[in-house]
């Protein structure tokens, strides 16, 4: 087709015409009229052929211009559909169509590859077959870029996974630690509270004890001084007893003297009695003599009788005195005995008093010791009381601190939760970014109907929040749902849309439909939902 002859189509009639006209002119000069006429006819035919060829070329070029215009506008649907044209027009047409086909292929391949990247699918590469030159180089560049993006996305995913797990473990540790801290703080607060209570009650008790001890100390002091008083009294009574003993001994001695005097009186009385007896005998003798002397002796006889009477009376008186002296002697002996008894009693009293004094002295020492000890005890209990008040203050402060720590630990725990949530949201947003963009690319429409979610573990109901041809957002909590899980959604009888869970957050989850597995009915159902909602 592309022979050099066919390419001369544009100029061949002109050359023939020009040669014919030149020949004709030569023939006119040579006056060969018929030859000139013949050549003129040839020239005319050549002109007509040239015109025809030009028309053919013009329409061919016009089509080429139209196609090129369309291609220039980016319309790759347009081709030159006048096939198998002869000559250069046919070549031009095929060349333009081939060019359009190759650029079209490149545009479709590159946009499909880039669209796949936009949808996070990195296996889609531009097929280099059929590409040449700049298109092949551009294809290689785009494929290399896709490789790079894939590597980076994978690295990014690995990094975010690591980041997420690291943050999660940190946050878990943080929350666990802060919970432990909170529990410890609670226990500490409880302990401090109970310490405070106990300390308070100990303080009260210790104050009571202190005042009791103080009273005891005072009593001990009084006891000590009263013991000292008793000691004085005892000393005085001992002195008195000693004086009494001395006096009793002296009295004894006096009474003993009295007894001796009485015995001497008795001896004197015996002498008197002897005198009286001899007197009586003398009187008797006198009487006898008087009687012999008769009347002369009568007066004498009377004196003799008187003397006799006197002697008798003296005998009687001495008898009485002797009896009295005997009484005196027996009374004196009794008195001596009594005095001796008194002396013994007083000596006993003295001995007792001595013992008492020893006891009282011991008592004084003891009460002094007691008073000192009690004073020490009082000081001690007051110090204990002060210390316990200090402990109580510390316990209150500790309880306050424990509350503070508990608050802090709650704050840490809440902040940990918040950090965890923020990181989770951040990572979800980070990973969901491309999916969201896909949703923007694929019109996403609000839904609101209930769907059955058929998962690996069973069936659950969920609400379809919004839907597009490529995915859906659902509200509902499914036990054990995880990212990457394969599900099937059923929103209408006998229609199931296979899909994969891409994200889960706050009771909602997003699925991407497995487009290769969607049945015609499922596609129609989805398109129906999208179109109806868009029309509304």
């Amino acid at each position, binding site marked *: 087709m592309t022979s050099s002859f066919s390419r001369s189509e544009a100029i061949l009639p002109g050359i023939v015409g020009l040669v014919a006209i030149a020949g004709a002119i030569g023939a006119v000069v040579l006056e060969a009229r018929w030859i000139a006429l013949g050549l003129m006819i040839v020239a005319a035919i050549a002109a007509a052929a040239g015109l025809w060829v030009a028309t053919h070329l013009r329409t061919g070029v016009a089509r080429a211009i139209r196609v090129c215009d369309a291609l220039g506008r980016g319309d790759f649907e347009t*081709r030159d559909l006048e096939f198998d044209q002869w000559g250069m027009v046919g070549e031009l047409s095929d060349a333009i*169509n081939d060019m359009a086909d190759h650029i*079209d292929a490149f545009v479709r391949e590159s946009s499909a590859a880039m669209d796949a990247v936009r949808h996070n*699918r990195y*296996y889609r590469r531009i097929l280099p*077959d059929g590409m040449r030159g700049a298109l092949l180089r551009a294809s290689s560049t785009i494929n290399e870029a896709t490789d790079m993006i894939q590597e980076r996305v994978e690295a990014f995913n690995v990094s975010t996974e690591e980041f997420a797990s690291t943050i999660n473990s940190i946050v878990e540790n943080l929350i666990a630690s802060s919970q432990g801290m909170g529990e410890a703080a609670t226990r500490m607060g409880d302990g401090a509270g109970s310490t405070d209570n106990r300390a308070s009650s100990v303080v009260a008790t210790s104050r009571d004890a202190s005042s009791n001890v103080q009273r005891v100390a005072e009593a001990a002091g009084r006891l000590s001084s009263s013991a000292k008083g008793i000691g004085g009294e005892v000393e005085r009574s001992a002195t008195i007893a000693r004086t009494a003993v001395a006096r009793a001994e002296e009295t004894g001695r006096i009474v003993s003297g009295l007894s001796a005097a009485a015995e001497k009186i008795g001896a004197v009385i015996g002498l008197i009695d002897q005198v009286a007896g001899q007197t009586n005998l003398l009187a008797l003798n006198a009487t006898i003599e008087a009687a012999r002397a008769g009347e002369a002796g009568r007066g004498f006889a009377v004196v003799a009788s008187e003397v006799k009477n006197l002697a008798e009376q003296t005998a009687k008186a001495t008898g009485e005195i002797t009896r009295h002296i005997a009484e005196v002697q027996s009374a004196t002996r009794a008195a001596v005995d009594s005095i001796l008894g008194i002396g013994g009693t007083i000596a006993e009293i003295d001995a007792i008093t001595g013992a008492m004094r020893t006891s009282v002295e011991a008592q004084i020492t003891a009460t002094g010791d007691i008073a000192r000890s009690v004073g020490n005890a009082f000081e001690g209990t007051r110090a204990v009381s002060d210390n316990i008040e200090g402990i109580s203050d510390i316990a209150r402060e500790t309880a306050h601190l424990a509350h503070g720590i508990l608050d802090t630990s709650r704050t840490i725990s809440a902040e940990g939760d918040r950090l965890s949530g923020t990181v989770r949201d951040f990572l979800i947003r980070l990973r969901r970014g491309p999916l969201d963009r896909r949703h923007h690319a694929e019109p996403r429409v609000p839904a609101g109907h209930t769907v059955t979610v058929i998962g690996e573990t069973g069936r659950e109901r969920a609400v379809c929040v919004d839907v597009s041809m490529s995915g859906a957002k659902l509200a509902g909590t499914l036990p054990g749902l995880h990212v990457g899980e394969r599900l099937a959604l059923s929103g209408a009888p006998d229609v199931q849309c296979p899909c994969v869970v891409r994200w889960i957050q706050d009771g909602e989850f997003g699925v991407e439909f*497995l487009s*290769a597995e969607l049945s*015609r009915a499922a*596609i129609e159902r989805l398109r129906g939902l999208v179109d109806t909602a868009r029309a509304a």
Partner: protein
Amino acid sequence: MATQIIPTQREVTFGPDEIIVSKTDLKGRITYANRTFANIAGYSRGELMGAPHSIIRHPDMPRAVFKLLWDRLGEQHEVFAYVKNMTRHGDYYWVFAHVTPSYDDTGKVVGYHSNRRVPDRRVIREVMEPVYGELLRIEASHANAKDGLRASFGRLLDIVKSKANSYDELIFSL
């Protein structure tokens, strides 16, 4: 027309830097074919214009593959498929077809575009011929064509699911 052609066991090929290009309307009627297409299929481009694309369908191709292709195009997805085609003379040629929707300026799908490249012969031999053979047997084993198609399509999806996350991923992993 295709029914009148008796398949031969002759294979024809095209160059690795060549692309077979065709465009169809929404119903699959050819609206453009390039020279390579015309040359290998043995039809003139004038003959191909307006003809159904199934003019080159080979009876060895399971219908499930075309169902998958049309389903995916219905979702406005590009489709890759290894396809065994048949020339006017009954000869066959394998292609690695890439079919995409064509849009107008308002974003409406106005037709489909197919670029076919020389396939990897290893994939044809080791994967496509056994799989397509199985699907074809499934389709043939049902008296009712509809049942056969459902069974073989189900089997195709099972094969995809067992090997990869998606059909595209499977195709690109081959």
